[in-house]
C-alpha cells in the first residue's frame, strides 16, 4: 500500500470512529437540538469514511477495508460506552425462556434444509440458463447467488405461518425451474 492510500485509510477509519462516537453520544442526548446536531455530524462523518477509503484504495478494495474498520470502530465505541458496574441481580435468571413449553421443530429445520437444497439447485440451473447475460456470466452469477437462494428458501419454509402452502409453493417453483431448464437445455 502506498503512502497516500495508507493515509486515506487512516483518515477514513478515524472519520468513521468519530462519526460513530458522535452518533452514540447523540442517541443519548436528552435535548432534541443537541441530539439532532450530534446525529447529523455523526452521519456526515460516517459517510465520509467510505468515500475517503474508496478514493485512496479504489471501490473494490476500499469498501471492504472500510467496512472492516467500521465494524471494529463500532465495537470499540459500544464497549467504551458500556454501562459498567456490579450486577444488580447477578444470580437471577429468566424464569421463562422464550421457547419454553414450545417444542422446537428440529425435523422441520432438516426438512426445510433438504427441500431448499433441491429448490435452490433447480433455480441455480434456471438462472444459469435464463439470466439476460452472456453464458459465462450467467453461470457465475448463478453460482454466487445460489447460497443465498438456499438460505432464503430455508428461512421462508421455516418461518411461513401456512407451512403446507409454503412447501407446496417451493415444490411448484422447483418443478417450474426444472421444466424451464429441460426446455431451455433440450429444446
Amino acid at each position, binding site marked *: *500500500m502506498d503512502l497516500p492510500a495508507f493515509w486515506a485509510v487512516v483518515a477514513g477509519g478515524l472519520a468513521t470512529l468519530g462519526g460513530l462516537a458522535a452518533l*452514540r453520544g447523540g*442517541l443519548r442526548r436528552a435535548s432534541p437540538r443537541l441530539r439532532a446536531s450530534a446525529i447529523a455530524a455523526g452521519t456526515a462523518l460516517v459517510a465520509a469514511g467510505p468515500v475517503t477509503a474508496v478514493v485512496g*484504495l*479504489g471501490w*473494490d*478494495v476500499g469498501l*471492504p*477495508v472500510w467496512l*472492516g474498520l467500521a*465494524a*471494529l470502530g*463500532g*465495537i470499540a465505541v*459500544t*464497549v467504551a*460506552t*458500556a*454501562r459498567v458496574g456490579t*450486577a*444488580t*441481580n*447477578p444470580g437471577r*435468571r*429468566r*424464569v421463562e*425462556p*422464550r*421457547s419454553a413449553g*414450545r417444542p*422446537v*421443530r428440529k425435523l422441520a*429445520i432438516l426438512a426445510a434444509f433438504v427441500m431448499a437444497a433441491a429448490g435452490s439447485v433447480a433455480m*441455480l*440451473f434456471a438462472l*444459469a440458463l435464463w439470466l439476460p*447475460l*452472456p*453464458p*459465462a*456470466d450467467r*453461470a*457465475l*452469477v*448463478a*453460482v*454466487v447467488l*445460489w*447460497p*443465498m437462494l*438456499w*438460505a432464503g428458501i*430455508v*428461512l421462508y419454509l*421455516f*418461518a411461513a*405461518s401456512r407451512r403446507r402452502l409454503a412447501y407446496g409453493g417451493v415444490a411448484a417453483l422447483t418443478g417450474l425451474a426444472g421444466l424451464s*431448464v429441460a426446455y*431451455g*437445455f433440450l429444446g
Partner: protein
Amino acid sequence: MRQAVLKSLYDLHSWVGLVLGLILYIVCFSGVVALFDAELGPWDRGDVRAYGGPAPAGLDRAVAHVVVGIADEGRGVNFTVRLPTPYRQTVAVDHRGADGPVTEQFDPMTGEPVPSRGSVSTTILTRLHTDLLLPQPWGRYLVGGLGIVMLLSVISGVILHRKIIRDAFTLRLDRSLRLKWTDLHKAVGLWGLPFHFTMALTGAILGFVGLILMYTAVVAFKGDLGSAAAEMMAPGVIATGEAAPMMPVSALIEMAGEALPGIVPEVVMVRAYGDSGAVAEVMGNVPGSLVYYPSVSLEAATGAVLGVTDWSAGGIGKRVYAMVTPLHYASYGGFALKVLYALLGAGSCFLVVSGLSIWHARPHGRATMQHLTTGVVYGLPLAIAGLLVAGRVAAPAFAADERGMTLLFLLFCCPGVAWPWLRGAARAASEMLLGTGLLLAAFPALTIVGGGAESYQVWGVAGAPVATADIAGFLLGLGALAWGMAEGRRLRRRHDRGADFQD
C-alpha cells in the same frame, strides 16, 4: 412482523447454532490462524535468510535441475514452479516422480538444490479450515454446508433484531450474566454483519464450487463443453509429439509481465515440457485489486501469448466471481488487511461462543453441553499452539510428515475435550488458557534456542517475519496467561463464597 414468525426464526437461529455452533467455531478459529499460513512459514522453518527476489539465472538453473532429473530430459512432463516470496525464500518445483508427487527446493540466486525445511503444521491448520481434516471432497462440501448454515444464522439474526441501531450500541455490563452475553452477541454480530455475511457467502461458494460450477457452466452453455472451456478456462495443451527447445521460464515470466502489466508472478505451470505444443501459464496477483489469480498463457517454445485470463476486466459475472476468493482469504491487501480480518474473524468465533453461552446461562443448562463447549472453545487454541510448537521442535522428518502430524494434532485435541469432565468447566477453561499462554509465550525462546547464532539476525530486516511471529506469539501468550489467571482468581473467589462453578 408476526410473533409466530419471529419465534420460528428464533428457534432456527438458536438450534442451528446449538447443533452446529462448535463445528462452526472450529472452522472460524482455524480460519483465523490459516490466514497467516504464509507468514508463519519463516518462523516454522526458523528461516532468517534475506529475500532478494527471484534471480532469472537461478530460476532457470533450478528448472534445468528438475528436467534433467526426469527421464528423456523431462519431455512431455508437467511441473509447477513456485517463485520465492518474502515468506518463502526458495524456488519450489512440484512434479510427479516415480513414487508420486515430489517437491524440490532450490536457492533462488544460484539455482542449486537446498534441503527442504519446515513442518506441515500450517498445512494441517489450513486443511482443518477448508476440509475439517476429512477426506476430499467430502470435507470441503461439509464446510460449504456450514457456510450455508452461517448464512442462515446471520440472516435470521438480523431479522430477529429489529432495533438494530439501539442493539448495536447497547452493552449492559452491570446486568445479569445472560444479559451481558446477549448484548455482546448482538453488538459483535451487528457491527461485524458485512464481514460475517461475506465470509459465510464466500465460504459456501468455495465449499461447493468444485461440484456446482462445472454443471452450471454446462447448463449455461447448453451442453457445449468446448465453448464453456474456451470461455472459462485457460487455453489447454495439444501435445504434438514433436520435440522443441523450450524458452527459459524467466523469459516467459517477463513476457507475461508485458502481456498483463502489474502482475506479480507467483506460480508458473508448465504442461508437456519439451513438446512443441507445450504451454506455460504464469499466474500471480495484481496488488491492490480484488481479483483471483489473473494469468497469462504462453507457448513454452516460442513465448507467443495464447491468452490473458483477467476476470476483473470481464463481464459482471466474472468480476463478481473473481472477488470471491480474495474476499475470503484477504489476499488483496497485505499483512495489515490480514490483521483486520483476524480481528473480525475472532468476532465470528466470539459470536458462536457468546451464542452458546447465552444458552448455557439459561435455567436447567446441561452440564454435558457446557463441558463440550468448554473443551472445544479452549481446547482448540491449546491444540493449535501445541501443533505449532511441535512442528518447530520435532525431528525434520516427522515434522514434514502430514499424516503423523495430523495424528499428533488430533492427539492434542483429546485432552482439551476431556479436561472439563475431569476438572469442571470453569477450572478446565482457566488451565487450558494457561497452557495455551505458556506455549505461545515460548515462541521467541524456541527461535533463540533453535537458531543458535543465526537467531540474532531475527531482529534485522531479513528476519522481520520471524520476529513478527515471535512478538505476536509472545503477546498473545501473555494475553492468554493473564486471562487464565484472571479466570483462576474469579474461580477462587466464587469457591470462597461457596458458589457453584457452572459459569
